[in-house]
Protein backbone atom coordinates (compact mmCIF):
# COMPACT_ATOMS: atom_id res chain seq x y z
CA UNK A 1 0.00 0.00 0.00
CA UNK A 2 2.76 2.40 0.83
CA UNK A 3 4.10 1.98 -2.72
CA UNK A 4 0.96 3.53 -4.19
CA UNK A 5 1.41 6.57 -2.00
CA UNK A 6 4.87 7.23 -3.26
CA UNK A 7 5.53 10.95 -3.40
CA UNK A 8 6.67 12.44 -6.66
CA UNK A 9 8.85 15.46 -7.19
CA UNK A 10 6.17 17.10 -9.33
CA UNK A 11 2.63 16.54 -8.04
CA UNK A 12 -0.57 16.44 -10.05
CA UNK A 13 -0.79 12.95 -11.53
CA UNK A 14 -4.58 12.96 -11.29
CA UNK A 15 -4.95 16.32 -12.91
CA UNK A 16 -2.54 15.71 -15.79
CA UNK A 17 -3.90 12.22 -16.44
CA UNK A 18 -7.43 13.58 -16.49
CA UNK A 19 -6.42 16.29 -18.88
CA UNK A 20 -4.57 13.79 -21.09
CA UNK A 21 -7.63 11.57 -21.34
CA UNK A 22 -9.91 14.51 -22.07
CA UNK A 23 -7.52 15.91 -24.63
CA UNK A 24 -7.01 12.61 -26.41
CA UNK A 25 -10.75 11.97 -26.52
CA UNK A 26 -11.48 15.40 -27.84
CA UNK A 27 -8.74 15.52 -30.46
CA UNK A 28 -8.54 11.90 -31.47
CA UNK A 29 -11.14 9.47 -30.12
CA UNK A 30 -14.26 11.44 -30.99
CA UNK A 31 -13.39 11.95 -34.69
CA UNK A 32 -12.31 8.32 -35.03
CA UNK A 33 -15.45 7.25 -33.16
CA UNK A 34 -17.53 9.29 -35.58
CA UNK A 35 -15.86 7.57 -38.50
CA UNK A 36 -16.55 4.14 -37.04
CA UNK A 37 -20.12 5.13 -36.16
CA UNK A 38 -20.81 6.21 -39.74
CA UNK A 39 -19.36 2.95 -40.99
CA UNK A 40 -21.32 0.88 -38.49
CA UNK A 41 -24.57 2.22 -39.92
CA UNK A 42 -23.88 0.28 -43.13
CA UNK A 43 -24.85 -3.31 -43.71
CA UNK A 44 -22.01 -5.80 -44.24
CA UNK A 45 -22.83 -6.19 -47.93
CA UNK A 46 -22.79 -2.43 -48.51
CA UNK A 47 -19.56 -2.10 -46.59
CA UNK A 48 -17.92 -4.89 -48.52
CA UNK A 49 -19.13 -3.55 -51.85
CA UNK A 50 -17.76 -0.09 -51.01
CA UNK A 51 -14.33 -1.25 -49.90
CA UNK A 52 -13.71 -4.07 -52.39
CA UNK A 53 -14.56 -2.33 -55.64
CA UNK A 54 -11.67 -2.86 -58.10
CA UNK A 55 -11.09 0.87 -58.36
CA UNK A 56 -10.76 1.13 -54.59
CA UNK A 57 -8.49 -1.91 -54.39
CA UNK A 58 -6.23 -0.42 -57.07
CA UNK A 59 -5.97 2.74 -54.97
CA UNK A 60 -5.00 0.76 -51.82
CA UNK A 61 -2.20 -0.90 -53.75
CA UNK A 62 -0.90 2.45 -54.93
CA UNK A 63 -1.28 4.28 -51.62
CA UNK A 64 0.29 1.59 -49.44
CA UNK A 65 2.80 0.47 -52.07
CA UNK A 66 4.09 3.94 -52.84
CA UNK A 67 4.16 4.80 -49.13
CA UNK A 68 6.26 1.70 -48.39
CA UNK A 69 8.68 2.46 -51.22
CA UNK A 70 8.93 6.12 -50.17
CA UNK A 71 9.55 5.19 -46.52
CA UNK A 72 12.18 2.61 -47.55
CA UNK A 73 14.05 5.16 -49.67
CA UNK A 74 13.93 7.56 -46.73
CA UNK A 75 15.17 4.85 -44.37
CA UNK A 76 18.39 4.48 -46.35
CA UNK A 77 19.00 8.05 -47.41
CA UNK A 78 17.54 9.63 -44.27
CA UNK A 79 19.98 7.60 -42.16
CA UNK A 80 22.79 8.73 -44.46
CA UNK A 81 21.80 12.38 -44.12
CA UNK A 82 21.60 12.03 -40.33
CA UNK A 83 25.06 10.39 -40.28
CA UNK A 84 26.61 13.17 -42.33
CA UNK A 85 24.97 15.87 -40.22
CA UNK A 86 26.16 14.34 -36.94
CA UNK A 87 29.60 12.98 -37.76
CA UNK A 88 31.12 15.56 -40.07
CA UNK A 89 31.75 19.27 -39.89
CA UNK A 90 31.53 21.22 -43.08
CA UNK A 91 30.55 24.72 -44.17
CA UNK A 92 26.78 25.20 -44.52
CA UNK A 93 26.00 22.36 -42.16
CA UNK A 94 23.55 24.45 -40.10
CA UNK A 95 21.76 25.46 -43.27
CA UNK A 96 21.36 21.88 -44.50
CA UNK A 97 20.24 20.87 -41.04
CA UNK A 98 17.49 23.49 -41.22
CA UNK A 99 16.54 22.54 -44.77
CA UNK A 100 15.69 19.01 -43.65
CA UNK A 101 12.65 20.38 -41.82
CA UNK A 102 11.32 22.12 -44.90
CA UNK A 103 8.87 19.35 -45.86
CA UNK A 104 7.32 19.78 -42.38
CA UNK A 105 6.76 23.49 -42.83
CA UNK A 106 5.98 23.90 -46.51
CA UNK A 107 2.26 23.56 -47.32
CA UNK A 108 1.89 20.25 -49.12
CA UNK A 109 0.00 21.84 -51.99
CA UNK A 110 2.96 24.13 -52.63
CA UNK A 111 5.27 21.12 -52.58
CA UNK A 112 3.01 19.32 -55.06
CA UNK A 113 2.94 22.26 -57.46
CA UNK A 114 6.72 22.69 -57.17
CA UNK A 115 7.31 19.00 -57.85
CA UNK A 116 5.03 18.90 -60.86
CA UNK A 117 6.60 22.06 -62.29
CA UNK A 118 9.97 20.38 -61.94
CA UNK A 119 9.03 16.95 -63.25
CA UNK A 120 6.42 17.70 -65.93
CA UNK A 121 7.71 16.90 -69.40
CA UNK A 122 8.24 20.63 -69.95
CA UNK A 123 9.87 21.14 -66.52
CA UNK A 124 13.52 21.65 -65.59
CA UNK A 125 14.18 18.08 -64.60
CA UNK A 126 11.37 16.45 -66.53
CA UNK A 127 12.61 17.44 -69.97
CA UNK A 128 15.89 15.59 -69.45
CA UNK A 129 14.23 12.55 -67.93
CA UNK A 130 11.91 12.59 -70.92
CA UNK A 131 14.92 12.06 -73.21
CA UNK A 132 15.91 9.05 -71.10
CA UNK A 133 12.36 7.77 -71.50
CA UNK A 134 11.44 8.28 -67.86
CA UNK A 135 8.15 9.94 -67.04
CA UNK A 136 7.63 11.13 -63.47
CA UNK A 137 4.73 13.58 -63.45
CA UNK A 138 1.31 11.96 -63.86
CA UNK A 139 2.63 8.44 -63.24
CA UNK A 140 2.92 6.18 -60.23
CA UNK A 141 6.58 7.17 -60.02
CA UNK A 142 5.40 10.73 -59.40
CA UNK A 143 3.40 9.52 -56.40
CA UNK A 144 6.51 7.83 -54.99
CA UNK A 145 8.54 11.02 -55.50
CA UNK A 146 5.97 13.11 -53.60
CA UNK A 147 5.69 10.60 -50.76
CA UNK A 148 9.48 10.36 -50.46
CA UNK A 149 9.71 14.13 -50.27
CA UNK A 150 7.23 14.54 -47.41
CA UNK A 151 8.67 11.59 -45.42
CA UNK A 152 12.33 12.62 -45.35
CA UNK A 153 12.43 14.64 -42.10
CA UNK A 154 10.89 11.83 -40.06
CA UNK A 155 13.80 9.44 -40.46
CA UNK A 156 16.48 12.12 -40.17
CA UNK A 157 14.97 13.67 -37.06
CA UNK A 158 14.50 10.38 -35.22
CA UNK A 159 17.94 9.00 -36.04
CA UNK A 160 19.91 12.20 -35.47
CA UNK A 161 19.64 12.46 -31.64
CA UNK A 162 20.43 8.76 -31.15
CA UNK A 163 23.46 9.10 -33.36
CA UNK A 164 24.60 12.15 -31.41
CA UNK A 165 24.56 10.08 -28.21
CA UNK A 166 26.51 7.29 -29.83
CA UNK A 167 30.15 8.04 -29.04
CA UNK A 168 32.66 7.65 -31.85
CA UNK A 169 34.85 5.91 -29.22
CA UNK A 170 32.77 2.79 -29.53
CA UNK A 171 33.57 2.53 -33.21
CA UNK A 172 37.24 3.10 -32.40
CA UNK A 173 37.12 0.42 -29.71
CA UNK A 174 35.52 -1.98 -32.14
CA UNK A 175 38.21 -1.27 -34.73
CA UNK A 176 41.05 -1.60 -32.23
CA UNK A 177 39.66 -4.97 -31.18
CA UNK A 178 40.13 -6.11 -34.75
CA UNK A 179 36.68 -5.73 -36.27
CA UNK A 180 36.47 -4.83 -39.93
CA UNK A 181 34.61 -1.68 -41.00
CA UNK A 182 31.68 -3.75 -42.14
CA UNK A 183 31.53 -5.68 -38.87
CA UNK A 184 31.63 -2.42 -36.93
CA UNK A 185 28.67 -1.10 -38.85
CA UNK A 186 26.79 -4.37 -38.56
CA UNK A 187 27.54 -5.26 -34.93
CA UNK A 188 28.06 -1.88 -33.26
CA UNK A 189 26.32 0.95 -35.08
CA UNK A 190 23.25 -0.62 -36.63
CA UNK A 191 21.96 -2.38 -33.50
CA UNK A 192 21.95 0.85 -31.52
CA UNK A 193 20.32 2.75 -34.35
CA UNK A 194 17.74 0.13 -35.22
CA UNK A 195 14.95 1.26 -32.85
CA UNK A 196 15.28 4.86 -34.04
CA UNK A 197 15.37 3.76 -37.68
CA UNK A 198 12.22 1.72 -37.17
CA UNK A 199 10.41 4.60 -35.52
CA UNK A 200 11.43 6.96 -38.30
CA UNK A 201 10.36 4.41 -40.88
CA UNK A 202 6.97 3.94 -39.24
CA UNK A 203 6.37 7.70 -39.00
CA UNK A 204 7.41 8.33 -42.61
CA UNK A 205 5.19 5.49 -43.75
CA UNK A 206 2.17 6.61 -41.73
CA UNK A 207 2.54 10.17 -42.97
CA UNK A 208 2.81 9.01 -46.58
CA UNK A 209 -0.27 6.77 -46.48
CA UNK A 210 -2.46 9.70 -45.48
CA UNK A 211 -0.82 12.30 -47.72
CA UNK A 212 -3.20 14.13 -50.02
CA UNK A 213 -2.16 17.70 -50.81
CA UNK A 214 1.09 17.16 -52.67
CA UNK A 215 0.11 13.95 -54.43
CA UNK A 216 -3.03 15.17 -56.17
CA UNK A 217 -0.99 17.68 -58.15
CA UNK A 218 1.65 15.29 -59.44
CA UNK A 219 -0.28 12.04 -59.81
CA UNK A 220 -2.75 12.94 -62.55
CA UNK A 221 -5.50 11.23 -60.53
CA UNK A 222 -6.34 8.60 -63.15
CA UNK A 223 -8.64 5.96 -61.64
CA UNK A 224 -7.08 2.48 -61.46
CA UNK A 225 -3.64 3.91 -62.23
CA UNK A 226 -2.59 6.97 -60.29
CA UNK A 227 -5.52 7.53 -57.94
CA UNK A 228 -4.59 7.41 -54.25
CA UNK A 229 -7.07 6.26 -51.61
CA UNK A 230 -7.41 9.65 -49.84
CA UNK A 231 -8.48 11.21 -53.14
CA UNK A 232 -11.08 8.51 -53.59
CA UNK A 233 -12.43 9.31 -50.13
CA UNK A 234 -12.73 12.98 -51.05
CA UNK A 235 -14.45 12.05 -54.32
CA UNK A 236 -16.97 9.90 -52.44
CA UNK A 237 -17.72 12.65 -49.96
CA UNK A 238 -18.27 15.12 -52.80
CA UNK A 239 -20.89 12.82 -54.26
CA UNK A 240 -22.63 12.94 -50.86
CA UNK A 241 -21.70 9.26 -50.36
CA UNK A 242 -20.63 9.75 -46.75
CA UNK A 243 -21.01 6.09 -45.91
CA UNK A 244 -18.78 4.95 -48.76
CA UNK A 245 -16.18 7.54 -47.76
CA UNK A 246 -16.31 6.45 -44.12
CA UNK A 247 -16.03 2.77 -45.08
CA UNK A 248 -12.85 3.32 -47.10
CA UNK A 249 -11.55 5.57 -44.33
CA UNK A 250 -12.10 2.76 -41.84
CA UNK A 251 -10.18 0.31 -43.99
CA UNK A 252 -7.27 2.76 -44.23
CA UNK A 253 -7.38 3.30 -40.48
CA UNK A 254 -7.30 -0.42 -39.72
CA UNK A 255 -4.60 -1.18 -42.28
CA UNK A 256 -2.38 1.66 -41.11
CA UNK A 257 -2.92 0.61 -37.50
CA UNK A 258 -2.01 -3.01 -38.28
CA UNK A 259 1.13 -1.98 -40.13
CA UNK A 260 2.22 0.37 -37.37
CA UNK A 261 1.61 -2.37 -34.81
CA UNK A 262 3.75 -4.71 -36.87
CA UNK A 263 6.57 -2.19 -37.10
CA UNK A 264 6.35 -1.42 -33.39
CA UNK A 265 6.39 -5.16 -32.70
CA UNK A 266 9.53 -5.51 -34.78
CA UNK A 267 11.10 -2.63 -32.93
CA UNK A 268 10.26 -4.17 -29.57
CA UNK A 269 11.61 -7.51 -30.71
CA UNK A 270 14.89 -6.07 -31.97
CA UNK A 271 15.46 -4.02 -28.84
CA UNK A 272 14.73 -7.06 -26.67
CA UNK A 273 17.29 -9.12 -28.54
CA UNK A 274 19.58 -6.63 -26.91
CA UNK A 275 22.47 -4.56 -27.98
Amino acid at each position, binding site marked *: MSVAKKRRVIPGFGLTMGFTLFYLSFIFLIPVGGLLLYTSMMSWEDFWRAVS*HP*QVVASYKLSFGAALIGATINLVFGALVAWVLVRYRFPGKKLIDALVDLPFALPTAVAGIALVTLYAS*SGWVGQYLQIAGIKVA*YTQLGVVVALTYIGLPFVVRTVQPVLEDLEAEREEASASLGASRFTTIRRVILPSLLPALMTGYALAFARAVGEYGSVVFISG*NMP*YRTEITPLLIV*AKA*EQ*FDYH*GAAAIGTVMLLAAFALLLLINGLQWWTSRRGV
Partner: protein
Amino acid sequence: MKISLRHTLIGGLATLFVASASAAEIELLNVSYDPTREFYREYNAAFSKHWSELKGDEVRVRQSHGGSGSQARSVIDGLDADVVTLALAYDVDALRQQADLIPENWQSRLPDNSSPYTSTIVLLVRKGNPKNIRDWDDLVRDDVEVITPNPKTSGGARWNYLAAWGYALNKFDGDEDKTYQFISKLFQNVPVLDSGARGATNTFVQRGLGDVFIAWENEAFLSVEQLGKGEFEIVVPSVSILAEPPVTVVDKNVDRKGTREVAEAYLGYLYSDEAQRLAGQHYYRPSNPEIGKEFADSFPDVELFRIDDVFGGWQKAQDTHFNDGGKFDSILEEISRR
Protein backbone atom coordinates in the same frame (compact mmCIF):
# COMPACT_ATOMS: atom_id res chain seq x y z
CA MET B 1 -15.80 56.37 -7.45
CA LYS B 2 -16.71 52.75 -7.84
CA ILE B 3 -20.30 53.42 -8.74
CA SER B 4 -19.52 56.09 -11.26
CA LEU B 5 -17.08 53.75 -12.99
CA ARG B 6 -19.75 51.12 -13.27
CA HIS B 7 -22.19 53.65 -14.65
CA THR B 8 -19.67 54.77 -17.16
CA LEU B 9 -19.21 51.19 -18.30
CA ILE B 10 -22.91 50.54 -18.62
CA GLY B 11 -23.39 53.81 -20.41
CA GLY B 12 -20.59 52.98 -22.78
CA LEU B 13 -21.96 49.54 -23.53
CA ALA B 14 -25.43 50.93 -24.10
CA THR B 15 -24.08 53.48 -26.54
CA LEU B 16 -22.26 50.74 -28.40
CA PHE B 17 -25.44 48.72 -28.63
CA VAL B 18 -27.56 51.58 -29.92
CA ALA B 19 -24.90 52.59 -32.39
CA SER B 20 -24.56 49.11 -33.83
CA ALA B 21 -28.33 48.76 -34.14
CA SER B 22 -28.90 51.98 -36.03
CA ALA B 23 -26.10 51.55 -38.59
CA ALA B 24 -27.84 48.66 -40.34
CA GLU B 25 -25.04 46.84 -42.01
CA ILE B 26 -26.27 43.63 -43.54
CA GLU B 27 -23.96 40.80 -44.39
CA LEU B 28 -24.74 38.16 -47.00
CA LEU B 29 -22.78 35.04 -47.85
CA ASN B 30 -22.91 33.86 -51.45
CA VAL B 31 -21.53 30.34 -51.92
CA SER B 32 -20.58 29.86 -55.54
CA TYR B 33 -18.42 27.71 -57.82
CA ASP B 34 -14.97 28.28 -59.28
CA PRO B 35 -15.17 30.42 -62.43
CA THR B 36 -17.69 33.00 -61.14
CA ARG B 37 -15.08 34.75 -58.98
CA GLU B 38 -14.54 37.73 -61.27
CA PHE B 39 -18.20 38.21 -62.17
CA TYR B 40 -19.53 38.26 -58.62
CA ARG B 41 -16.79 40.54 -57.39
CA GLU B 42 -18.18 43.24 -59.68
CA TYR B 43 -21.81 42.29 -59.23
CA ASN B 44 -21.57 42.55 -55.44
CA ALA B 45 -20.35 46.11 -55.70
CA ALA B 46 -23.16 46.95 -58.13
CA PHE B 47 -25.81 45.39 -55.88
CA SER B 48 -24.46 47.11 -52.77
CA LYS B 49 -24.82 50.46 -54.49
CA HIS B 50 -28.29 49.60 -55.75
CA TRP B 51 -29.49 48.50 -52.30
CA SER B 52 -28.11 51.49 -50.43
CA GLU B 53 -29.83 53.82 -52.92
CA LEU B 54 -33.06 51.89 -52.45
CA LYS B 55 -33.10 51.28 -48.70
CA GLY B 56 -30.20 53.22 -47.28
CA ASP B 57 -28.66 50.10 -45.72
CA GLU B 58 -25.16 48.89 -46.34
CA VAL B 59 -24.87 45.36 -47.71
CA ARG B 60 -21.60 43.56 -47.59
CA VAL B 61 -21.55 40.36 -49.63
CA ARG B 62 -18.95 37.79 -48.79
CA GLN B 63 -18.00 35.26 -51.47
CA SER B 64 -16.89 31.67 -51.27
CA HIS B 65 -15.65 29.76 -54.32
CA GLY B 66 -14.68 26.16 -54.96
CA GLY B 67 -15.75 23.05 -56.81
CA SER B 68 -19.53 23.10 -57.13
CA GLY B 69 -20.04 19.73 -55.41
CA SER B 70 -17.81 20.50 -52.45
CA GLN B 71 -19.43 23.92 -52.04
CA ALA B 72 -22.86 22.29 -51.85
CA ARG B 73 -21.48 19.85 -49.29
CA SER B 74 -20.18 22.71 -47.12
CA VAL B 75 -23.64 24.29 -47.09
CA ILE B 76 -25.24 20.95 -46.24
CA ASP B 77 -22.72 20.52 -43.43
CA GLY B 78 -23.67 23.90 -41.98
CA LEU B 79 -21.90 26.72 -43.86
CA ASP B 80 -24.20 29.73 -43.29
CA ALA B 81 -24.90 30.60 -46.92
CA ASP B 82 -27.73 33.06 -47.59
CA VAL B 83 -27.68 32.28 -51.30
CA VAL B 84 -26.00 29.63 -53.42
CA THR B 85 -25.03 30.18 -57.05
CA LEU B 86 -23.70 26.81 -58.19
CA ALA B 87 -22.70 25.15 -61.43
CA LEU B 88 -25.60 22.75 -61.83
CA ALA B 89 -29.08 22.07 -60.56
CA TYR B 90 -28.07 18.68 -59.17
CA ASP B 91 -25.75 20.26 -56.61
CA VAL B 92 -28.41 22.78 -55.57
CA ASP B 93 -31.00 20.05 -55.35
CA ALA B 94 -28.72 18.22 -52.93
CA LEU B 95 -29.45 21.00 -50.43
CA ARG B 96 -33.05 19.80 -50.47
CA GLN B 97 -32.39 16.07 -50.63
CA GLN B 98 -29.64 15.90 -48.05
CA ALA B 99 -30.62 18.61 -45.59
CA ASP B 100 -34.06 20.00 -46.49
CA LEU B 101 -32.68 23.54 -46.64
CA ILE B 102 -34.83 24.64 -49.59
CA PRO B 103 -38.35 23.72 -50.78
CA GLU B 104 -39.07 21.31 -53.60
CA ASN B 105 -40.11 24.04 -56.05
CA TRP B 106 -36.90 26.04 -55.68
CA GLN B 107 -36.07 26.09 -59.36
CA SER B 108 -39.38 27.64 -60.42
CA ARG B 109 -39.13 30.59 -58.02
CA LEU B 110 -37.04 32.71 -60.39
CA PRO B 111 -37.30 33.17 -64.18
CA ASP B 112 -35.46 30.97 -66.70
CA ASN B 113 -35.14 27.92 -64.39
CA SER B 114 -33.48 30.21 -61.84
CA SER B 115 -30.53 30.69 -64.19
CA PRO B 116 -29.92 34.41 -64.74
CA TYR B 117 -27.01 33.61 -67.04
CA THR B 118 -26.13 30.55 -69.04
CA SER B 119 -23.03 29.18 -70.63
CA THR B 120 -22.00 26.33 -72.83
CA ILE B 121 -19.10 23.98 -73.38
CA VAL B 122 -16.46 24.77 -75.99
CA LEU B 123 -13.05 23.44 -77.01
CA LEU B 124 -9.85 25.33 -76.32
CA VAL B 125 -6.81 24.54 -78.49
CA ARG B 126 -3.27 25.83 -78.76
CA LYS B 127 -2.35 28.72 -81.05
CA GLY B 128 -2.73 27.95 -84.72
CA ASN B 129 -4.70 24.79 -83.91
CA PRO B 130 -1.74 22.48 -84.73
CA LYS B 131 -3.81 19.29 -84.47
CA ASN B 132 -6.57 20.78 -86.62
CA ILE B 133 -9.40 20.19 -84.16
CA ARG B 134 -12.78 21.27 -85.50
CA ASP B 135 -15.44 19.31 -83.65
CA TRP B 136 -16.10 16.59 -81.07
CA ASP B 137 -15.10 13.92 -83.64
CA ASP B 138 -11.50 15.06 -83.49
CA LEU B 139 -11.36 14.34 -79.76
CA VAL B 140 -11.46 10.58 -80.29
CA ARG B 141 -8.57 10.57 -82.77
CA ASP B 142 -5.58 8.50 -81.61
CA ASP B 143 -3.12 11.40 -81.86
CA VAL B 144 -5.08 13.84 -79.70
CA GLU B 145 -4.73 14.31 -75.94
CA VAL B 146 -7.79 15.72 -74.20
CA ILE B 147 -7.87 17.63 -70.90
CA THR B 148 -11.03 17.60 -68.81
CA PRO B 149 -11.56 17.40 -65.05
CA ASN B 150 -13.10 14.39 -63.33
CA PRO B 151 -16.91 14.27 -63.72
CA LYS B 152 -17.11 12.56 -60.35
CA THR B 153 -15.84 15.64 -58.53
CA SER B 154 -16.33 18.55 -60.92
CA GLY B 155 -19.66 20.03 -61.99
CA GLY B 156 -18.10 21.56 -65.09
CA ALA B 157 -16.71 18.18 -66.11
CA ARG B 158 -20.21 16.71 -65.96
CA TRP B 159 -21.37 19.35 -68.42
CA ASN B 160 -18.36 18.44 -70.64
CA TYR B 161 -19.22 14.77 -70.56
CA LEU B 162 -22.91 15.36 -71.26
CA ALA B 163 -22.14 17.77 -74.10
CA ALA B 164 -19.99 15.13 -75.81
CA TRP B 165 -22.56 12.42 -75.09
CA GLY B 166 -25.39 14.54 -76.55
CA TYR B 167 -23.34 15.19 -79.67
CA ALA B 168 -22.55 11.51 -80.17
CA LEU B 169 -26.10 10.41 -79.47
CA ASN B 170 -27.28 12.76 -82.20
CA LYS B 171 -24.54 11.62 -84.58
CA PHE B 172 -25.35 7.94 -84.15
CA ASP B 173 -29.12 8.51 -84.35
CA GLY B 174 -29.75 7.62 -80.75
CA ASP B 175 -27.64 4.45 -80.71
CA GLU B 176 -26.61 4.20 -77.03
CA ASP B 177 -23.91 1.55 -77.57
CA LYS B 178 -22.10 3.51 -80.24
CA THR B 179 -22.38 6.66 -78.12
CA TYR B 180 -20.89 4.80 -75.17
CA GLN B 181 -17.97 3.62 -77.33
CA PHE B 182 -17.42 7.20 -78.53
CA ILE B 183 -17.20 8.59 -74.99
CA SER B 184 -15.04 5.67 -73.89
CA LYS B 185 -12.65 6.44 -76.77
CA LEU B 186 -12.63 10.11 -75.78
CA PHE B 187 -11.66 9.29 -72.19
CA GLN B 188 -8.84 7.00 -73.38
CA ASN B 189 -7.26 10.19 -74.68
CA VAL B 190 -7.40 11.87 -71.26
CA PRO B 191 -3.98 11.70 -69.52
CA VAL B 192 -4.88 13.55 -66.32
CA LEU B 193 -8.13 13.93 -64.40
CA ASP B 194 -8.04 17.04 -62.22
CA SER B 195 -10.65 17.33 -59.52
CA GLY B 196 -11.92 20.78 -60.54
CA ALA B 197 -12.27 23.12 -63.51
CA ARG B 198 -9.61 25.58 -62.36
CA GLY B 199 -7.10 22.77 -61.80
CA ALA B 200 -7.70 21.48 -65.31
CA THR B 201 -7.26 24.97 -66.73
CA ASN B 202 -3.87 25.12 -65.02
CA THR B 203 -2.89 21.71 -66.36
CA PHE B 204 -3.65 22.81 -69.90
CA VAL B 205 -2.44 26.41 -69.74
CA GLN B 206 0.46 26.32 -67.26
CA ARG B 207 1.75 22.74 -67.56
CA GLY B 208 1.27 22.64 -71.31
CA LEU B 209 -0.34 19.22 -71.19
CA GLY B 210 -2.82 18.07 -73.85
CA ASP B 211 -3.91 19.27 -77.28
CA VAL B 212 -7.47 20.29 -76.49
CA PHE B 213 -9.20 21.39 -73.33
CA ILE B 214 -12.95 20.93 -72.88
CA ALA B 215 -14.06 23.97 -70.94
CA TRP B 216 -16.81 26.30 -69.85
CA GLU B 217 -17.20 28.97 -72.48
CA ASN B 218 -16.41 31.67 -69.93
CA GLU B 219 -13.29 29.81 -68.66
CA ALA B 220 -12.14 29.46 -72.27
CA PHE B 221 -12.58 33.18 -72.89
CA LEU B 222 -10.72 33.91 -69.67
CA SER B 223 -7.81 31.70 -70.77
CA VAL B 224 -7.69 33.36 -74.19
CA GLU B 225 -8.00 36.93 -72.90
CA GLN B 226 -6.06 36.85 -69.68
CA LEU B 227 -4.04 33.75 -68.84
CA GLY B 228 -2.16 33.40 -72.08
CA LYS B 229 -3.00 36.13 -74.54
CA GLY B 230 -2.54 34.93 -78.09
CA GLU B 231 -1.54 31.42 -77.08
CA PHE B 232 -4.92 29.76 -77.36
CA GLU B 233 -7.89 29.63 -79.68
CA ILE B 234 -11.49 28.74 -79.05
CA VAL B 235 -13.04 26.11 -81.28
CA VAL B 236 -16.82 26.06 -81.19
CA PRO B 237 -18.22 22.58 -81.74
CA SER B 238 -21.21 22.06 -84.05
CA VAL B 239 -23.44 21.00 -81.17
CA SER B 240 -23.11 21.65 -77.45
CA ILE B 241 -25.10 21.71 -74.27
CA LEU B 242 -26.91 24.66 -72.75
CA ALA B 243 -25.38 24.92 -69.30
CA GLU B 244 -27.72 26.56 -66.82
CA PRO B 245 -26.02 27.37 -63.52
CA PRO B 246 -28.91 28.00 -61.13
CA VAL B 247 -29.19 30.28 -58.10
CA THR B 248 -31.39 30.11 -55.02
CA VAL B 249 -31.95 31.56 -51.60
CA VAL B 250 -31.17 29.06 -48.82
CA ASP B 251 -34.52 29.29 -47.01
CA LYS B 252 -33.57 27.71 -43.69
CA ASN B 253 -30.56 30.01 -43.33
CA VAL B 254 -32.15 33.32 -44.35
CA ASP B 255 -35.20 32.71 -42.14
CA ARG B 256 -32.97 32.07 -39.17
CA LYS B 257 -30.75 35.07 -39.87
CA GLY B 258 -33.59 37.37 -40.94
CA THR B 259 -31.96 38.18 -44.25
CA ARG B 260 -34.65 36.87 -46.61
CA GLU B 261 -35.64 40.26 -48.03
CA VAL B 262 -32.16 41.34 -49.02
CA ALA B 263 -31.13 37.85 -50.17
CA GLU B 264 -34.12 37.64 -52.50
CA ALA B 265 -33.40 41.14 -53.80
CA TYR B 266 -29.78 40.11 -54.37
CA LEU B 267 -30.81 37.27 -56.66
CA GLY B 268 -33.64 39.23 -58.27
CA TYR B 269 -31.24 42.00 -59.23
CA LEU B 270 -29.22 39.47 -61.24
CA TYR B 271 -31.98 39.80 -63.86
CA SER B 272 -31.66 43.59 -64.08
CA ASP B 273 -30.20 45.13 -67.22
CA GLU B 274 -27.11 46.23 -65.34
CA ALA B 275 -26.35 42.76 -63.99
CA GLN B 276 -27.15 41.08 -67.29
CA ARG B 277 -24.64 43.32 -69.03
CA LEU B 278 -22.09 42.57 -66.33
CA ALA B 279 -22.61 38.84 -66.91
CA GLY B 280 -22.07 39.35 -70.64
CA GLN B 281 -18.85 41.23 -69.98
CA HIS B 282 -17.63 38.25 -67.97
CA TYR B 283 -18.40 35.90 -70.85
CA TYR B 284 -21.63 34.48 -69.46
CA ARG B 285 -24.57 34.43 -71.85
CA PRO B 286 -27.24 36.79 -70.44
CA SER B 287 -30.64 35.14 -70.09
CA ASN B 288 -32.39 38.34 -71.19
CA PRO B 289 -32.48 38.06 -75.00
CA GLU B 290 -32.49 41.84 -75.44
CA ILE B 291 -29.21 42.23 -73.56
CA GLY B 292 -27.97 39.04 -75.23
CA LYS B 293 -28.20 40.82 -78.59
CA GLU B 294 -25.66 43.40 -77.42
CA PHE B 295 -23.14 40.59 -76.97
CA ALA B 296 -24.09 38.68 -80.11
CA ASP B 297 -20.66 39.32 -81.58
CA SER B 298 -18.73 37.73 -78.74
CA PHE B 299 -20.86 34.59 -78.46
CA PRO B 300 -20.67 32.32 -81.49
CA ASP B 301 -23.82 30.65 -82.75
CA VAL B 302 -23.98 27.06 -81.54
CA GLU B 303 -26.77 24.57 -81.73
CA LEU B 304 -27.53 24.06 -78.04
CA PHE B 305 -29.52 21.25 -76.50
CA ARG B 306 -31.03 21.14 -73.00
CA ILE B 307 -30.21 18.50 -70.42
CA ASP B 308 -33.93 17.95 -69.76
CA ASP B 309 -34.58 17.10 -73.40
CA VAL B 310 -31.71 14.66 -73.94
CA PHE B 311 -31.09 13.20 -70.48
CA GLY B 312 -34.42 13.72 -68.72
CA GLY B 313 -33.05 16.10 -66.11
CA TRP B 314 -30.09 16.18 -63.76
CA GLN B 315 -31.24 13.53 -61.34
CA LYS B 316 -31.58 10.97 -64.11
CA ALA B 317 -28.32 11.98 -65.77
CA GLN B 318 -26.55 11.69 -62.43
CA ASP B 319 -28.00 8.25 -61.70
CA THR B 320 -27.28 6.82 -65.15
CA HIS B 321 -23.86 8.31 -65.75
CA PHE B 322 -22.02 9.57 -62.68
CA ASN B 323 -23.16 7.70 -59.60
CA ASP B 324 -21.23 4.64 -58.46
CA GLY B 325 -21.82 1.81 -60.90
CA GLY B 326 -22.94 4.27 -63.59
CA LYS B 327 -21.77 4.54 -67.18
CA PHE B 328 -18.73 6.66 -66.34
CA ASP B 329 -17.54 4.05 -63.83
CA SER B 330 -17.77 1.28 -66.39
CA ILE B 331 -15.91 3.42 -68.94
CA LEU B 332 -13.07 3.87 -66.42
CA GLU B 333 -13.06 0.15 -65.71
CA GLU B 334 -12.91 -0.65 -69.40
CA ILE B 335 -10.00 1.73 -69.94
CA SER B 336 -8.09 0.23 -67.00
CA ARG B 337 -8.24 -3.22 -68.57
CA ARG B 338 -6.49 -2.07 -71.72
